[in-house]
């Protein structure tokens, strides 16, 4: 991270929620900008070019999807959705439209900070040279140059599709990947609805790489949304 404090724009209409997020952000060394409505949020994003946007889905003037679409018209700032129970559909819509991750209320400060860190790191990595070897937990090592996967010292043989799926997850490590994004990136745009393919290959990956596939540590299911590869156990 650079010397200047990263700026986070909080778009949230409830004051207490804004306060909690602002306090958590400043306590962790971020600069917080605030907006009460969607249009205000878009305006702030234009004016201040924040490093990250925290976007509540229950805004009074626009829905989250509209805000994400407006932001994505002109920039790639990481967007983390804040959703409540019962907003599952609009959450997935916003993610499919380009939001990077989400948090479900109520969430803790630690969770918030972890998500922000991952999103900022991912945005930075997209600009830099991609890493060649990625570790997942202590056990799994993916060598992206030699296209090899190791579990401990042992090489794990993956099929082409399994490997492709793994690399897409690795590229977005720590972030949620919606079913649609995964299907499009692994199988191509024509396969966005063949969700059972994805389920089967995810299961195969888990059985090859997780100790207890029924209680995965890394290849996590985000029910109704997609998958998340957790790189730190």
């Amino acid at each position: 991270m650079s010397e200047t404090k990263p700026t986070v724009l909080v778009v949230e209409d409830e004051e207490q929620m804004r306060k909690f997020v602002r306090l958590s952000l400043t306590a962790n060394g971020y600069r917080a900008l605030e907006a009460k409505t969607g249009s205000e949020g878009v305006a702030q994003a234009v004016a201040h070019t924040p490093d990250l946007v925290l976007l509540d889905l229950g805004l009074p003037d626009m829905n989250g999807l509209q805000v994400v679409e407006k932001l994505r018209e002109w920039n790639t700032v990481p967007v983390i959705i804040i959703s409540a129970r019962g907003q599952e559909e609009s959450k997935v819509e916003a993610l499919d439209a380009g939001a990077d991750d989400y948090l479900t209320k109520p969430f803790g400060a630690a969770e918030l900070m972890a998500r922000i860190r991952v999103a900022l790191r991912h945005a930075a990595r997209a600009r830099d040279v991609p890493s060649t070897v990625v570790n997942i937990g202590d056990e799994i090592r993916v060598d992206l140059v030699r296209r090899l996967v190791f579990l401990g010292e042992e090489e794990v043989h993956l099929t082409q599709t399994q490997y492709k799926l793994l690399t897409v997850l690795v590229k977005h490590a720590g972030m949620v990947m919606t079913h649609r994004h995964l299907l499009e990136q692994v199988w191509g745009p024509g396969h966005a609805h063949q969700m059972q393919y994805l389920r089967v290959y995810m299961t195969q990956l888990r059985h090859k790489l997780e100790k207890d596939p029924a209680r995965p540590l890394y290849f996590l299911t985000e029910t109704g949304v997609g998958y998340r590869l957790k790189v730190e156990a």
Partner: protein
Amino acid sequence: MNRERALPGYLAGAAVVGASTLMAWIVFGRVELTDVTMLLLLGVVVVAMRFGYGPSLLAAALSVVAFDFFFVRPYWSFAVSDPRHIVTFAVMFLVAVVISHLTKRIRDHAEHARERERRTASLYALSRDVGALQSTKPLLEAAARHVREVFGGVKVAFLMPRHDDRDALEVVYADDGTFIANDTDLGVADWVWVNERSAGAGTATLPTSRAMILPLKGAGARVAVLALFPSESAMLGTAEERQLLETFAGLIGSALERILLADEARGARLRMETEQLRNALLSSVSHDLKTPLAVVTGATSALLEEGAPKDEVTRRELIQTAHEEAQRLNRLVRNLLDMTRLEAGALKVNKNLESLEEVVGSALNRMEDRLRGRDVKATIPVDLPLVALDAALVEQVLINLLENATKYTPEGSPIDIEAKEKDGEVEVDVADRGPGVSAADVDRIFEKFYRAHEREGGGVGLGLTICRGVVTAHGGRIWVDARPGGGAVFHFALPLPSEGEAYPSLPTESEHPG
């Protein structure tokens, strides 16, 4: 029925007399004269039985004439030599007429009996059909069918008061060719509804109307209006038909009233239950929400107030307590929200082919904190087929079952999850080593607000009800029984998709990346 078959009947009657005369002529001379009269009278009986009253009278007259002409001296002449024969003629004619009369009465009786039987049968059929029906529309359809059958060719329509306005009628059932829009006969129907008397065609009131319109009454009050549109073949003119119609109207009226009353009772019961539910919910919720709220308020104010504890351990403990109670509040609110959505029928089951291993994994992941310190084992066969389910909802079922297990079993006791394919279903078991579920609770445990153990840490008593709601919405079953060796096992079973759907075909690949 066949009494109107005029001319052929008379001709046949004459023919029968001719035949009996011929037979008598053949045996004439070898038998007594009285036997001849008997043979002729037999002819009259045959005519009376087969061709009715008129022809039999003709046959009686013809028989006497034939007797005179062929069998009384002088033969081949109407002249009578012996005046005693005049008496024979008179008696013979009289006997023939009496036979005709008696036969007619027997025939009339038989016909009446047949008619009564037909009517009873149709009434029986109607009452049997409408008695079994539970809603208005099929009842009216059945009633209309019976009316059409019995009064061949008649067309039927029913009108009932509108829901919002008891005085305004609307057509709720109509055969083709009955009412047309803005029909003047609808005015007649209104008149019938208001006055509760028949009107229209065939009655004294407004007889120029196309339809005969009858009020349908139950034991209590008017319920509907029946409109009959007579056709060429069914004029609804005779007294019997009218009487039968009245009986029909009474039966249909009672059946309709029964259904309407049942609907009303159901509605009232539902309103009462909703009211009871709301009250129970309110009292239960306010109680269950108050406790954690009190703890949060107490703990945080202790930290804020002057003279707050300074030592880090106490402060941390207070914060920890407030945090735990806030999480408990969150769970309570979540269950309440789910329950209201279930109750309101707003729960959308968004089924996809899902892997149970993932759903279980996700539930365990979300329960991670609360399952800490317990030995949790999940046994899911690798070849378990995908199941069509709403992952978010089934995950909630698992979470509720796991939450229950953590609440009601000793800390640190193990929990086992097992999934298996069985008879076209996938069954998931969540087994604990707690105190188990008593026989009395086995049936009631899934009921709303029912709590097997009233104790600290319990919820509102909705968790299992939500589970049942979700599983039922998937077409599945949920139940609980005792675990061999102690503890309880909650099972739920979901139907498997049909063959082929569950196992997606995948392209085969070699295990060589790149």
